[in-house]
Structure formats: C-alpha cells, structure tokens
C-alpha cells in the first residue's frame, strides 16, 4: 500500500468530515488498523526483512525534520531539540498534522490538520525520535472503567481555564489561542496533557496519575456530545449566544406587536 493510496483511502473513509461522530469512527478505524498491524508485525517483519524498519525512520527524519530539528535531533535556530521529548511528543505533533510545518520558518503557528504521513511512517518516525533520548511514552488510555465525575472535576480545575467548560478553546495573549478539543482524538488529548505542546503546560505522572488521565480524557471525550437536556445547545457559547438568541426573540416579539398594533386602513 503506497502512501497516496493510504491517504486516498482514509479520506474516502472519512467522507467530508462534517460529522464529528463519523470523524471519531474514522479514528477508530485508523487505530484499529494500527492495532492490527501491530499484531501481525512479526510475520511482516520476517517477510520484509528485519533490517527494514529501523532504517526507514531515520531516512524519513532526514528528509522531513532534520532541516529544522538538526541532523541528530539536536535542534537548530529554526526548531527545538527533539532529544528527550519522547514518543508521546513525536506521536502528538505528527498525528495532529501540526508537524511538519507547511513553511519551515521559526515563529510559525502549527495548525491542526491532516497528518502528512501514513500511520506506518508515523510509527517509524516516533520510534526514531524516541530513540534519541528518554522522554514521555505514549500514554496507554483505558476508558472502559473511568470516573467521569472525577474527570469533570479535574477538567474544570486544570483544563477549563484555557479550553472552556465546553472544550471549545479560549483566547490567549500573543500565542494564537487555546484550540478546541472536540476534533482532537482521545490519544492525542492524553499525549498533549503529558507533554504540554506549545503554550500548554504539561502534567506529569506525579501530578496527574494514569487513572486520573483516563478520567479527564473521558470527560473531554464526553464534551464532544454533552447532554443538552434543554434543547438546542446554542453552540455552547454561554451567555454570548444567549444574548443573540434573546435578540432574535425580541425581533419576533416586535413583529408580534407590529401585527397587533397595525393600523387598519380603508
């Protein structure tokens, strides 16, 4: 399967990406595929030859990353060192499509987008970056038995002040803005908490243990489609959209008065 085949297939599988649920399903497919590849890897390795994989990671790195991060990940004036950032960091930046930057200049804001590499390529790059020095591993999420309420408390204390009670993000000063969490897959949420990408602070295992990490990710996941018992959620903007809705209602009521107070002619 070539790279462009992979991209085409993934795009086709995701459709036009309007539907959040479908996007999630897409990610589930990707992750399932990744898991399947992982399971069948020994057999594949024998077929392709064991020496194949470790060599492709460095080659990809040299072609796509080294110009900013240095030939051995030591960093340059264009980009930070990758020694010791760990697998979690490489996985987060590559899978979120934030890296590589479209324009390779310092000071660019890395935006979320389609990943530039296939799943296999990403895993090879991640392995290579992780081999440069010790750093946070990709967290192993388990959302089967979580305490959603605990997660909510942790979310409100640690996340809501930047990402909003709804996860739609918030305004920062001089650093772009805190991004919305809804399009971020669970695993990347967990990675971001551990590594603190960009202006985001990081949360170590001593501060937020793995169980708490599961809880807080589960709550952020819940916020994708929270319970809107009261009807249409007005995009969860709070009193700002409520003001707009009230404004429209006022318009309706003015129309009612225009009808009632109309001067009958003739």
């Amino acid at each position, binding site marked *: 399967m070539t790279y462009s085949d992979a991209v085409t297939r993934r795009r086709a599988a995701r459709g036009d990406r309007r539907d959040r649920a479908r996007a999630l399903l897409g990610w589930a497919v990707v992750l399932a595929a990744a898991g399947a590849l992982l399971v069948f890897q020994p057999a594949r390795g024998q077929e392709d030859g064991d020496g194949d994989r470790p060599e492709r990671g460095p080659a990809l790195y040299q072609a796509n990353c080294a110009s900013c991060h240095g030939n051995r990940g030591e960093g340059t004036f264009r980009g930070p060192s990758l020694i010791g950032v760990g697998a979690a960091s490489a996985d987060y930046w590559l899978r979120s499509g934030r890296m590589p930057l479209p324009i390779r200049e310092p000071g660019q804001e890395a935006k979320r987008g389609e990943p530039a590499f296939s799943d296999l390529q990403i895993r090879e790059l991640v392995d290579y970056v992780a081999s440069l020095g010790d750093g946070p591993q990709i967290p192993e999420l388990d959302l089967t038995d979580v305490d959603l309420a605990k997660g909510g408390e942790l979310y409100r204390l640690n996340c809501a002040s930047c990402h909003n009670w709804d996860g739609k993000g*918030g305004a920062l000063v001089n650093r772009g803005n805190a991004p919305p969490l809804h399009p971020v897959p669970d695993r990347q949420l967990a990675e971001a908490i551990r590594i603190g990408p*960009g202006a985001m602070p*990081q949360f170590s295992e*001593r*501060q937020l243990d793995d169980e708490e990490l599961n809880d807080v990710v589960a709550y952020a996941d819940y916020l994708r489609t929270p319970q809107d018992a009261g009807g249409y959620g007005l995009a969860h903007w709070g009193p700002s959209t409520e003001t707009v809705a009230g404004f429209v209602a006022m318009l309706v009521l003015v129309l009612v008065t225009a009808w009632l107070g109309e001067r*009958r002619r003739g």
Partner: protein
Amino acid sequence: MRVALAFLVSMAASVGFIGAYQLDAGTQWLALSLSIALGSLGAGLAWWSRRLMPQESSEEARPTLAPPPEEERETAETFEAGRRGIRRRGLLGGLLAAAVGALGLGTVWPARSLGPPPSSGFRQTGWREGVHLIDETGRRIGIDTLDFGGVVTVFPEGRDPAADDQVVLMRIPLEDLDLPEGRANWTPDGYVAFSKVCTHAGCPVGLYQDVGYLLLCPCHQATFDVVQGAVPVFGPAPRELPQLPLRADRDGLLLAAGDFSGPVGPDRWRLGEVKDGDA
C-alpha cells in the same frame, strides 16, 4: 371561525401538555404542547379583537392635571392652618422629629448584624513559614511533582482553605527567571508560586501559558509576566500578583518560606494599610 378553531387547538394542546407530563415525555414535548396552547389562545384573542370587536377610533378628552388656582390655594390654606397650630408648639414638634429620628436609627441599627466589622481578621491568609503545599486532593507537593513547564493549584496544609489561600505553582528553568531583587532564594529548583487571586476583580488566574510564561485571568484577560514577578503586562490589572516565597525541606517537600510579598486580591480603599501590615 378562525377564532373558534384557535381556541379548540389551544384546548387540545393543553390536554396534550397534561398527557406529555403524565407520560414524562420530556422537556421538548412539554414545551411544544404548552406553547401551542398559549400561542393559539393568544392568536385567537387577537383575531377576536381585531375581527369581531369595534375597531373604529374613539376619542377621549385628556384630563387637566394642573388644579384650578382657587383649589390649589384652598389646599395650601388648609395645610397652613394646621401647620400654624403645630408651630405654636415648636418645641414639641422638634422633639417629635428627634424622637422619630432616634427610633428610625434604633430600628435600623441591627443591620450591623449583617456582617462583622472589616477590621477583624482582615486578609489573613493561611500561609506562613513552614506550611506544606498541598494540591486540591490533599497530596503534598514535592520537588519532583512538576516537570519544567508544569502548573498546579496549591493550598496551605492543615486548614480549610479560604478563598485568598489559593496559589498557582509553576516550575520554570531558573535561568529563565528574572524576579525582582531579594527573591533569589524563593524559587527552589525553579518552583515559583503566586497568589491565584487576580488583583483586578478577584477571579482565579487559572490560565497559564508555558511559552512566554504568562498567567492570564479568563474573566477580563488581565495578563501577568511570571518571570518578572507576575507584573501586569496587558489588561486591567493594576498590580502584580503577590509572590509566595518557597523552600524545600530535606525530604524534598515544598514549604512556604513566609507570607505573600504583598496584599492578596483586588484593590480596595484601605489597601495601603494592609500592605504595611502584611509586609
């Protein structure tokens, strides 16, 4: 015809509302049925008024508000006559006014029960030399709790935390810190602590930007530069966040090395006095 139909629809919708309630059909069905009931009743009444009731303009004379001069004069004279009688007993009148005033003051006086006088226990925080830092679950904070780039909200150990006790603890490489004179040994291993109560309107300064080391209050976007000693750099805050001096003990646990560097919380009238008292 239309009116009758509207009333019939309203009736049916009211029955529907009761049905929706009995079936526990949910907020939306309740709202739909009740608003149809209300709306068609309203529309029916409006149609009735506009179609079946007199719509021609009526005219009505506007009443005169200013009274005729002689009535005004007579009223004034009646009042004056009585007042002359009162004025002859000038002392009594004065005493009456004083008594009513005193009674009024007396009955309003218990309003003081509403709150203690502010002088008692004004702005004492729970921080003093030797108090451990704990997080919201009660875990003690040690020198290894945060990585560089980490942030956590902490409280003084051993007391029910008051609103003014909250502290935001960050870990920043020592070489990046550029704190004011005399705070060099307040930051063991790069741990820096500031009051989390915004000096503008008192919201928690919960938003920490690890790049640029800025603390930001989400209420009005007051922004503080942490490495300079949390001085305001943008937004409405007039004052820096007070810093909490820290030290580490032999077990690697973090403790307060004293009280805050300045008054906690928003500006207020007697801020100057508090500043002297605290520092």
